[in-house]
């Protein structure tokens, strides 16, 4: 996983939201998204999302994989790996297949893994037909 993390973080992202950028609305992409600024609305990609320390997101995130280092107010529905770095602050529910939480990460919400039930009883992470996203792998 560290290899995937390194490759993705250092590799090219199709969409990069710079530190002074504010996005309002639905950010959809077919490739990796790297967020260093602020987003409010919705973030969606079948690939990976990287929320860099200092970034602030008020949005639901739907993605294949995610590495979170910034602040998020919203739900995360990740069909693959989710990594919460030590600087991550999450206020919302999480659904993913594999979860890694580093020391210092803050998370306040419900967590569902491997197709378990979350919130109002809807299956999220690994239920292909019910999910809005298809996992990369």
């Amino acid at each position, binding site marked *: 996983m560290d290899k995937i993390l390194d490759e993705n973080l250092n590799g090219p992202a*199709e969409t*990069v939201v710079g*530190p002074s950028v504010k996005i*309002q*609305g639905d950010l959809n*992409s077919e*490739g990796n998204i790297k967020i*260093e600024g602020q987003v409010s*609305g919705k973030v969606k990609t079948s690939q990976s999302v990287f929320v860099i320390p200092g970034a602030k997101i008020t949005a639901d995130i739907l993605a294949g994989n995610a590495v979170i280092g910034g602040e998020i107010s919203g739900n995360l529905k990740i069909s693959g790996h989710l990594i919460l770095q030590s600087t991550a602050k999450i206020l919302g529910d999480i659904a993913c297949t594999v979860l890694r939480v580093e020391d210092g990460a803050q998370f306040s919400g419900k967590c569902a893994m491997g197709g378990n039930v979350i919130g109002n009883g809807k299956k999220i992470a690994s239920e292909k037909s019910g999910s809005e996203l298809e996992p990369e792998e």
Partner: protein
Amino acid sequence: MEKFEKLQTELQGLLAEFKISGETARVTPLRSIQDLVDTASQRGAKTLVACGTDDTFNLMLAALKGRDFTLGFIPFNENSNLAKILGIENIFLGVKTIAARRIEKIDLAKISGNYFISFLEFGVMSHNIKNASLWQNLKLLSSEAKSFTIRVDDSYNVTINGLGGLVANIRSTSGQGEKIADPTDGNLDLLILERLSKLQILKYRDAISEGTLEKVPNTTVIKCKKIEFLEPRGTNLTMLGRVVAKFPSTVEIIPKRLRMIVGKNRTF
């Protein structure tokens, strides 16, 4: 003028050598590029070849107004950006390419009823950076950032404090496997430059002058199909230093719309 006549003679010689037939017409004070394109269209021409500078081609593209032609280009100057992109660095290669007629379908970008295949810039422009001294560059790139508001794909608004940026369909640094400015991917690439430290200006001056802003730290990169430039109103959108539109303006991509005669050494 003498140089132009010399180039014309060289061109005529090469056209005869490669047995390329067809009608040739010159722009005069009384016959604009628009008139020439209209006449060609009325006479049922299927292929148009612009001979001259990048601007000659861009003006021909704008004069098409959506009409369907196969397009070619023969450069008359050595520093042509378009020639580099299309892989036809000089007149000889230009004529040889026309004779070979290797045709590629590429994306066409549209702004306010005009068409372009390369890139548009706003704010601090690579064209200015390229032609300025180091000291002027430091001054230009140290200027106050402006707040730009841009709507993307009818889906979200981007507000950024930046120096400027570009919308690229294709650029001279486009290469095979390059994800940014690929003219066959059906997308535009929006790159916006944030304010830089003096050290960063010195380090990334070449990347900025080449328009490869993605190499500069903190640059925003967005792949999309439609871009609406909203604020600040009146900001110029330029192509090689020539103003083609002002904010508010909309840029859209029309995938695989243009049939272009290209050389073997094209950058895409």
